[in-house]
């Protein structure tokens, strides 16, 4: 006997209700937050009077691991040099004062590296408000690109999650497609992409994935 086709609305996750409740209340965001739902204490340039931020999206926190590991390695490099200083002494003959300044300068460069990498992560944000979507891309200290579109112009929202690391840590690329003459938006390596898609889809009147 053939089974009747399934009908009705399916509850995909019990977290839907949690998200709904979080959407209604303001939530505090930290400097290390990669996803803020209804964030509190956040304003942006050209924000309209009754415009409210619904989503703050940064790259997932786990994507910072490579530069943090590099910074940790760089912090310990002078100790390694110090351990093997006997080997270098015949070739490099500088006064202790110069060595001290060089070491301090080296650590200043490491601090600069950390500051730049954090800046690139911190300011690479996607904002979803009750009126529009704003994408701020900062890919270098001297390069920034801002794009925005109204919610009415969004045609489709989807996400892709390719690879084991992305699946394990639950992050992926969220693609927001607008009408053909406008550019598409992408929230690169965003955390919990399914949740982001669901929220944006509910705002534009769709049902999401």
């Amino acid at each position, binding site marked *: 006997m053939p089974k009747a086709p399934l009908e009705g609305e399916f509850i995909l996750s019990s977290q839907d209700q949690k998200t709904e409740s979080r959407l209604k209340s303001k939530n505090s965001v930290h400097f290390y937050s990669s996803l803020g739902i209804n964030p509190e204490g956040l304003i942006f*340039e050209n924000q309209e009077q009754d415009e409210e931020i619904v989503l703050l999206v940064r790259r997932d926190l786990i994507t910072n691991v490579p530069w943090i590991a590099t910074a940790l390695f760089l912090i310990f490099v002078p100790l390694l040099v110090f351990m093997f200083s006997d080997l270098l002494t015949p070739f490099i003959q*500088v006064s202790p004062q110069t060595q001290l300044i060089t070491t301090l300068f080296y650590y*200043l460069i490491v601090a600069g590296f950390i500051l730049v990498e954090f*800046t690139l992560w911190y300011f690479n944000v996607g904002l979803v408000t009750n009126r529009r979507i704003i994408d701020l891309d*900062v890919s270098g200290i001297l390069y920034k690109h801002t794009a925005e579109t109204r919610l009415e112009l969004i045609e489709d929202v989807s996400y892709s999650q390719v690879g084991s690391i992305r699946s394990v840590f639950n992050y992926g690329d969220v693609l927001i497609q607008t009408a053909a003459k406008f550019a598409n938006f992408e929230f690169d390596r965003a955390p919990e992409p399914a949740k982001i898609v669901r929220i944006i889809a509910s705002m534009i009147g769709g049902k999401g994935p």
Partner: protein
Amino acid sequence: MELIDFFVNIFSNQDVLFKIALMILISIYGLFALILTIQIGNLNRIINQITFSPIFTVLAGAHLVATLALLLFAVLFL
């Protein structure tokens, strides 16, 4: 002749050469630190997270001040 001797002295002494190179590098780095501080200030105006943006601006400023202090220290004591 004295001028030539002066340059010969500099290039024969590794420490002096190292000090000159260090001061030039710190000066260039100072310029980078200044640009970084200005950019962080500008970006903080675009996205302002009220609890953290002032701290971030101060951190960037401290980085610039540390660079200038190191340059001053290098010029005075090397």
